[in-house]
Structures are given as structure tokens and as C-alpha cells.
């Protein structure tokens, strides 16, 4: 592989990202710009930005690799990640926008009227955010090493630096343009090579893969028997419900002008994600024919990067390799930016804001928050041993589904939720999912039911968290905050009706 193509691609993407971010800077002046782009982003632009932010390395590189190695059951990941937006649309999009809060902890405090719930939520946003950032940074290292031969620490350093400059200087307003650009870049970077490679495959007389174990590869269940069925269903629950609990996903909804726009944006996102996710399986199927070695070695993550070089040679291969490298790098940058904003928003409200006072302090606090949000996982990514990317992202989804999903669901649709109920449910769901995944990361040879239950905890941890939340709320029903009725009115009444929303 030609190192120059990779280096040029990475430099171009980084420069374009910084340029667009600087251009967007002209519009960023107030604190509100920094956190939520002053809530004036139109659905088309906002949907592109959400797509740009959401399609991380796991989507761009991971899905094709997983499908190549494990087969059709891995198609549940992209389907679940898209369906998560449908669940979000139906259950939380419009009410969350109308709640008028900046971040998840803001929402939790407004709903339960408790500082304790707020603190717990802040802690979880930061934990989930860092958990999700770590594999992004490490993935950047692996990508840069594979395409340019750079040392493993180079990727995290470049990504952290670009994110730090961009988010720190322009906040949410300028990052909206950057992320919208990055969605279309990622789509092009996957679509164009896929089209060319399909033509090459046709010209080769469309060869098919060796039929050995083909039907097992085509079976959309993760494993044999009842365990396979359980694992697949649990994965469905984790991805369908986890999306609404991811901090960087939720924070974008506050940038919509109103509840109606929030719904239209989400519908737009469904279309954009569906379009994008048609492509990774094409790479996996072609990889099955041309990159059998990658499938056997189990290292599928570099499939998208290596396939052009395996199927073509000369300038064409270099160009396409450069293009997919650019797309992959855009994926690292945009997801890291979104996560950093979400984490920085929480940190600046609850941590750094306490140390910085005086004029301009909210913006200063936000910038300090960004530095903290980026540097901790970046240092961890360089220092820590490599973690399996798909597993850690899966953990983030399971934890989000077991904590924030029940909180949002019950907080928006049920009057009876109390502060004590929220805390109990968050703790049980968070501990349950976190302990299972720690166990799974440590366990080398999973066998049997116990390992299956702990490897995909969502199917039991989500209902458990909901039950605990409802049960404890019922037991403490005297403490339902008095403003709940008014709050629910505000969440569900369309903006056209002129209520006293105070």
C-alpha cells in the first residue's frame, strides 16, 4: 500500500475540518452557541450533522469487518443502530426538545427536581462518553498505522489535536457544519470505491466465494440453539434502546428549533443512515471473494482500507485507498467531536464551571471541559493496551440502554417517577451492565449460559432497571415532585398552543 495516499488523505481531511470549523466560528458568540448552536439548526443540516457524528469508526470500518469474519448475524448492528433512531423518534425526540434542557443531567434534574440524580447522570455521561471515545482514538491509531506505517500513538494524537482546536474554538455551532460535511464525505468515500470495485468484480466474471460453510455465514443468528437466539435478541434490545441513551446523540436534539423540527430531523436521519448502511455489506461480500486471508485471520477491521489495494493496482488503487482512508479519518474526527461536546457540556456545568468565574466564564469553562474531555481518553488510548473496539462500543450501548433509556422513557411518559426511583434504577442498570461487560472483557473463552447472559446483558438489565425504577418510585410515591404535571404538559403540548410553560 502506498503510504503517500494515506498521508495526503489524512492531512486533507484534517485541514478541511479545521477550515470549516474556523468558518463556522464567525457564528459562535454566546454560550448558547457553544452548547446547542442557539437551537436554530434546520432539519436538513441537522440530520446531516447527526449522521456525520453518529457514523463512527465502528460503522465505517467495523461493520464490514465483522460481517466478513462472522457473517450475516453481524448485519444486526447497522440495523439496530438505525432502528435506535426510530425508537428515539417515537419516544423522546419531540418531548426532549421541548423540555428546554441543555444536557441529559439538566433533563434529569428538571424532571426529578433532585441534585443527586443530576450528579449521578453527569457521572454516567462522562463515563459512557470516555468509554466510547477510547476505541475511537485507538481505532485512529490502527488506521494510521495500517495506511501510512505511522506509530500507533500518532492517530490518537492527531485526532485529539484536531478535535481540541475545533470544538474548543467554535463549540456546537461550528461543529454542526463540520459534521454535516463529514457525513457526505463518509458516504462518498464508501460509495465511490464500492461502485468501482463492483465493476471490477463484474469484469472478473463475478466470481463467488468458496461455498464452504456458506449457509452458516448467511444465517442471521449469533450462534447455535437457544443461546444464539438469546444473544441476537439481546443485541437487538441493546442497540434499539441504547441509541437514545448515548450522550452525544441526545445533545444534538437540543439544537432543533422546536419539537416538530426535532421529529423531522430524526426522520431525515433514518433515511441518511439507511443509505449509508447499504454499503458495508457490499465490502464484506467482496471481501469474502478477494480477501479470504483477512477473514481467516479474524482481523476484519482493516478490510475497507485494504480491499481497493487487493482488487486493483497502480494509481486507481492509491486513489481509492486514499478516499477510504479519508472517510475513516472523518469518522474518527466527527464522532470524537460529538462525544467531546457532550462530555464537555456536562463537565463545564458541573466541574470546571465551579473554578472559573467572571466575565466570559461560561465559554472558558466549556473550553476547559473540552480539554478534559479529550485528553483523558487520548492519554488512556496511548497508554492502555489495545481493547477490542466492537466490544467496548457494544458495552457503551448496553450501559446506555440500561440507564438513560429507562430514565428517559419513564421520565417522559410516566408521572409517577420519583428521584429515589430514578437513582435506584440508574444504579442497578448501570452496575448490572457494567459488571457483565467487565466480566466479558476479562473472560477469554466464553461458554454456556452464564457467559452468554453476561456477554449481552441488555435483555435482562434493561427490564430490571425499569422494574426497579417503577418499584422504588411506587414505594416513595409521596415524594413525586409537585411540578411534574406542569413539566409533562410542557413536554407533550405542541408549540402552537400557547401555554404558560414557565
Amino acid at each position, binding site marked *: 500500500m502506498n503510504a503517500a495516499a494515506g498521508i495526503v488523505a489524512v492531512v486533507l481531511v484534517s485541514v478541511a475540518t479545521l477550515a470549516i470549523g474556523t468558518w463556522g466560528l464567525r457564528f459562535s458568540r454566546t454560550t448558547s452557541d457553544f452548547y446547542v448552536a442557539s437551537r436554530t439548526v434546520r432539519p436538513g443540516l441537522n440530520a446531516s450533522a447527526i449522521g456525520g457524528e453518529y457514523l463512527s469508526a465502528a460503522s465505517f470500518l467495523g461493520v464490514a469487518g465483522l460481517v466478513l469474519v462472522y457473517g450475516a448475524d453481524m448485519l444486526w448492528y447497522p440495523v439496530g443502530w438505525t432502528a435506535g433512531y426510530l425508537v428515539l423518534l417515537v419516544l423522546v425526540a419531540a418531548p426532549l426538545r421541548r423540555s428546554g434542557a441543555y444536557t441529559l443531567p439538566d433533563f434529569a434534574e428538571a424532571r426529578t427536581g433532585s441534585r443527586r440524580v443530576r450528579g449521578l447522570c453527569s457521572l454516567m455521561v462522562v463515563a459512557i462518553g470516555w468509554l466510547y471515545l477510547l476505541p475511537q482514538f485507538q481505532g485512529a491509531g490502527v488506521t494510521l498505522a495500517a495506511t501510512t506505517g505511522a506509530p500507533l500513538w500518532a492517530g490518537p494524537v492527531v485526532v485529539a489535536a484536531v478535535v481540541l482546536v475545533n470544538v474548543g474554538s467554535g463549540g456546537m455551532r461550528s461543529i454542526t457544519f463540520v459534521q454535516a460535511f463529514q457525513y457526505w464525505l463518509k458516504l462518498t468515500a464508501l460509495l465511490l470505491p464500492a461502485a468501482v470495485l463492483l465493476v471490477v468484480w463484474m469484469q472478473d466474471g463475478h466470481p463467488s466465494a468458496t461455498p464452504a460453510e456458506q449457509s452458516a455465514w448467511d444465517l442471521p443468528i449469533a450462534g447455535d440453539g437457544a443461546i444464539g437466539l438469546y444473544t441476537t435478541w439481546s443485541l437487538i434490545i441493546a442497540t434499539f434502546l441504547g441509541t437514545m441513551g448515548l450522550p452525544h446523540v441526545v445533545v444534538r436534539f437540543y439544537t432543533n428549533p422546536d419539537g416538530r423540527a426535532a421529529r423531522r430531523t430524526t426522520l431525515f436521519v*433514518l433515511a441518511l443512515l439507511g443509505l449509508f448502511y447499504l454499503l458495508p455489506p457490499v465490502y464484506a461480500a467482496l471481501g469474502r471473494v478477494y480477501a479470504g486471508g483477512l477473514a481467516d485471520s479474524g482481523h476484519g477491521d482493516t478490510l475497507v482500507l485494504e480491499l481497493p489495494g487487493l482488487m486493483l493496482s497502480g494509481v486507481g488503487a492509491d486513489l481509492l485507498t486514499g478516499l477510504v482512508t479519508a472517510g475513516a479519518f472523518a469518522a474518527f474526527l466527527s464522532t470524537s467531536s460529538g462525544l467531546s461536546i457532550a462530555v464537555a457540556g456536562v463537565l463545564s456545568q458541573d466541574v470546571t464551571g465551579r473554578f472559573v468565574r467572571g466575565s466570559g466564564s461560561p465559554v472558558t469553562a466549556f473550553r476547559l471541559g473540552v480539554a478534559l474531555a479529550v485528553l483523558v481518553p487520548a492519554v488512556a488510548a496511548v497508554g492502555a493496551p489495545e481493547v477490542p473496539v466492537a466490544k467496548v462500543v457494544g458495552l457503551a450501548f448496553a450501559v446506555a440502554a440500561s440507564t438513560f433509556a429507562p430514565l428517559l422513557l419513564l421520565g417522559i411518559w410516566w408521572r409517577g417517577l420519583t428521584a429515589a426511583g430514578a437513582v435506584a434504577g440508574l444504579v442497578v442498570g448501570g452496575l448490572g451492565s457494567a459488571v457483565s461487560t467487565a466480566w466479558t472483557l476479562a473472560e477469554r473463552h466464553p461458554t454456556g449460559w452464564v457467559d452468554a447472559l453476561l456477554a449481552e446483558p441488555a435483555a435482562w438489565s434493561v427490564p430490571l432497571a425499569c422494574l426497579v425504577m417503577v418499584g422504588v418510585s411506587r414505594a416513595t410515591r409521596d415524594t413525586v415532585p409537585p411540578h411534574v404535571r406542569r413539566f409533562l404538559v410542557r413536554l407533550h403540548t405542541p408549540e402552537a398552543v400557547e401555554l*404558560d410553560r414557565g
Partner: protein
Amino acid sequence: MSDGPQPPPQRVRVTGPARSATRRTPLPRVGEIDAATPVGEIYLASLLREQQRLAVVVLGTLFLVLGAVPLVFHLWPSLAAHRLAGIPVAWWALGVLAYPFLFTLGAFYVRRAERNERDFAALVDAGGEDA
């Protein structure tokens, strides 16, 4: 919160749903909701119930249809070998058809949810005269 020294106010920060500029005196039925009278409670409860029913229908369809896919392949594994136009059926289902299905469900939901809200707005705004 802090805007530094006060330059000419070119920029207005909006921290909630836009309302103050166009504020009229609340209409009678809106007032019922604000005042949490039994009638207001009924209006709001009816909106919530409509939206909840819609959510159950849409999410029920989602989980039943997609949740059935693993079960079908678990019960009839030989299905995986079937091909349509050279592509195995599982790939058609999860790689292609799932996405238009999700979008259609979403579009259906948005249309119905907005209709529910319009009906609600008409109900409370029409208030005054005939109440």
C-alpha cells in the same frame, strides 16, 4: 448569564421555546390546562393517551417484525440457503429491506403524531366562544 460589557444588543439568546414575543392572553381552554382544572386534565390526558397508543403501535410493529427474523431462521435454518436474484434472503432482509421498513414506520409515526397534536391544538384553541 454573562455577556461581558454591554455592546449594542444585536443577538438575543433564546433559552426556551419561543413564546414571549407572540404572547397573547391565554385562551380559556388553555387556561384550564394551566390551572390544572379537571377539564384541563382531561384534555392533556387525552393527548398523552393518543400519543402513547401511537407509540405502542409503531414500536410493537418494529419489535414484532424485526424480532421475528431470528426466530424464523432459528426454526427453519435451511431458509438461509435460499437466494433471490443471487443474494441470500437474510441479506435481502437485513442488508436492504430493513431500512425502507424503518423509514416507512418513522414517516407514518411523524404524520400521525403531528395530526394528534393539531387536533389537540384545535381543541384547546377553539375553546373560548362555544365553551
